[in-house]
C-alpha cells in the first residue's frame, strides 16, 4: 500500500540518521533504514538480564528492579533466570572458586549475542576478599563487557552500567557479527584469562597483606607438621 497515490515514487525515505524513523499520519506505511540500526535498536531496548546475584550487590540489583529505580524503563525488567533466554549476565556479588564453574557454565549456556556486567568490587577484582577461597575478579572466568565499581554500587550505577551495554550494542554491526560474537565452543568451561594473567594475581599485593606485616600481631609461626598438606 505504500506506493498508493504515487506520492513516493521509488520508495520514500523517512528515517532520520541516527534517530527513530518517523512515520506520520497519512505518510508512507513503509520505511527504509539500516538493518544494523533496527537490529541494534531492538536488541538494546529489550535486553533480558540473567541475574547471577550472590551477595550484597544482589540486594542492590533487586532495589534497581523495584519501584524506585525501575529498570523496566530501559526494557530490562524481564529478569531471565534461565540462561538460555538471557542476553546480559549481571554478576552481582563475590564469586568463590566453588562457584566459578557455575558462573562459567551459565555463561556458556547463554546464546549469542550476549554481554556481561561485572557488578561491584568483589566481582570485578575480588574486593576486600583477597583470601584463599575467592576468585580475584570474574574476568579470569568469563569475558566482561562493563565493570560497575562500588561496594555495592548504587542502583543508579548499575543502571548506568546497563546503559553502557546499550551504547556498546549501538556500535555493533551485523557485517562484523562473526568477529564480535564468535565463540570457540571448545573453550567452554575453561578460564577466560590466560595462566599468566591469573598467576599475576598470586603475588602478595593489596592492602591486607601490608597491614598484616606492619601489625605482626597475629602469631603466624609455622610449626613443622608433615601432614599439613594432606587434606
Amino acid at each position: 500500500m505504500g506506493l498508493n497515490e504515487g506520492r513516493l515514487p521509488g520508495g520514500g525515505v523517512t528515517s532520520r540518521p541516527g534517530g527513530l524513523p518517523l512515520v506520520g499520519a497519512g505518510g508512507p506505511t513503509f520505511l527504509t533504514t539500516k538493518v544494523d540500526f533496527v537490529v541494534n535498536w531492538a536488541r538494546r531496548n529489550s535486553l533480558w538480564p540473567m541475574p547471577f546475584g550472590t551477595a550484597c550487590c544482589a540486594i542492590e540489583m533487586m532495589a534497581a528492579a523495584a519501584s524506585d529505580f525501575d529498570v523496566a524503563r530501559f526494557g530490562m525488567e524481564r529478569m531471565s533466570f534461565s540462561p538460555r533466554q538471557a542476553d546480559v549476565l549481571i554478576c552481582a556479588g563475590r564469586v568463590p572458586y566453588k562457584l566459578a564453574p557455575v558462573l562459567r557454565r551459565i555463561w556458556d549456556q547463554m546464546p549469542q549475542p550476549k554481554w556481561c556486567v561485572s557488578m561491584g568490587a568483589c566481582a570485578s577484582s575480588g574486593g576486600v576478599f583477597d583470601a584463599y577461597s575467592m576468585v580475584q575478579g570474574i574476568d579470569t572466568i568469563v569475558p566482561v563487557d562493563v565493570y560497575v565499581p562500588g561496594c555495592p554500587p548504587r542502583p543508579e550505577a548499575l543502571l548506568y552500567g546497563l546503559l553502557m551495554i546499550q551504547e556498546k550494542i549501538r556500535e555493533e554491526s551485523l557485517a562484523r557479527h562473526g568477529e564480535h560474537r564468535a565463540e570457540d565452543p571448545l573453550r567452554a568451561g575453561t578460564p577466560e584469562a590466560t595462566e599468566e594473567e591469573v598467576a599475576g594475581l598470586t603475588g602478595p599485593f593489596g592492602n591486607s597483606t601490608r597491614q598484616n606485616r606492619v601489625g605482626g600481631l597475629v602469631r603466624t609461626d609455622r610449626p613443622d607438621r608433615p601432614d599439613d598438606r594432606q587434606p
Partner: protein
Amino acid sequence: MAHRTVEYAVSRSPEMGVTGEPAHAPLFPVDMPEPPLSSEHMLINLGPQHPATHGVLRLVCELDGETVLRVIPHIGYLHSSFEKLGEYRTWNQVVTLTDRMDYLSPLIYNCAYVMAVEKLAGIEVTERCKVFRVILMEMERIFSHLLWLGTTAIDVGAFTPFLYAFQEREKIYKLHEKYTGARITTSATRVGGMMADIPDGWIDELKAFVAEVPRTIDEIDLLLTTNGIHLGRTQNVGMISGEDALNHGLTGPNLRASGVPYDLRKDNPYYDYETYDFDVPIGEHGDCYDRYLVRMEEMRQSVRILLQAIERLPGGAMDVADPHVTLPSKTDCMNDMESMIHHFKLIMEGLKVRAGDCYFPVEGSKGELGMYLVSDGGGKPVRWRIRPPSFVNLSVIAKLAQGHLVSDLIMINASLDIVLGEIDR
C-alpha cells in the same frame, strides 16, 4: 522402571480385520494383565543459581513423582573466608567485614561485633550510644523482615508485597545513607562508640518512617494473612515441634513459631532491653504460616521499641571518653604531636584488648547471633567466630521438607529466612 506395553491385534488398516473383513471396533487390546504402576526415584538439583533459593544455596532432592523424599543441602558457594580475614585485621577493621556478611541487616552485625569486643575489653559505652544502637538494631529487624516478606511473597506468587516492602526499605536505605553514607555496607560502629554522632534531622526522618511503616505492614497483612492461596501454601507446611526445633538449634522467629518463647532480648538482656515494653510473639504450630505471623508481629513490636527508644534517647557524648579506645579529635590531631601519634598508633596497631575469650549473643533478625572472640592481648583477634543463626536454621530443611511437594520445599526454604552471606561466611 515399568513400561506399559499394550499390543493391538490389528494387522494393516483400521477398516480391515485380521482376516480381511471389516471390523467395527478397529482397535482392541489383547487381553493382558496391566503391570502395576510404579515410579522411579528422581534426582533433582536445585541451584546454586536459582531464583527461589534466595542466594547460591544448592539443594539436591530425591523425588518420587513430585514428593520430596530427601533433601541434601550443599552450601559453601559463597564461602568468603570472613573468619580468616578477621584474623588479619585490627579490632576496628573487622567492622567493615561484618556488614558484608548479612547484607539484609548489616547494622545488627556491626553492633553485635563491637558489643562483643567491648564485653571482652571491659568497655562500658555511653547511655546515648546504647539507646542509639537499640534504635539501629530494631530498625534493621524491620529492614530484614521486610526483605524476607517481599521475597517470600514472590515465592508464593504475589508480586505486590515485594514492591510495597521495597518502598519501605528505600526509606531505611535513605536513613542508612544519611547516617553512614552507604546504603547497605554501613560499617557504622566502632569499638567504644559509633562512627559519628547522629546527624541533624535524622531522628525526625526516623520518626516519619516509624509513623508510616505500620500502615504498610497492615497493607501487606491484608494482602497475605487471609489470602486463600497464601494460606494453602503455608499452613501445615514444614511443621516442626518445639522440642525438635530446640534440638536442631533453631533460634529466632523460627523457634518462636514452634512455641518456644526464647528471645535473647528477654532471656539474656543486653542494653537494658528488659526496660522496654514489648511482647515476644509466639507461634503455635511451627509451620510456615506461623513463621510468617511471628515475623509480621515482630515488625510491629520493633516499631514499639523504636518509639520508646526515640523518646529516651539522651544527649551527651556518643563515644566513651577513654583514650585507650577512642581516637582524638581531628582538631587535636592537626594541632599537636601527641594526639597525632596517639591517632596513628590506634589506627596502625589497633586498640589492645585483654587476653581471654568472649561469647556475646544478640537477638538478630534471624536468630541468635553470637560473636565469639579470642584475644591474646594484641591488636588483632586470634579467632573471630560468628555463631551463624541462618546456618543452623538451614540445617533443619532436610527434616522439614521430607514428604512435602517440591513447591512446598520452596516455601519452606523461604520461610526459614536464610541469608547465604552469613551461612557460608
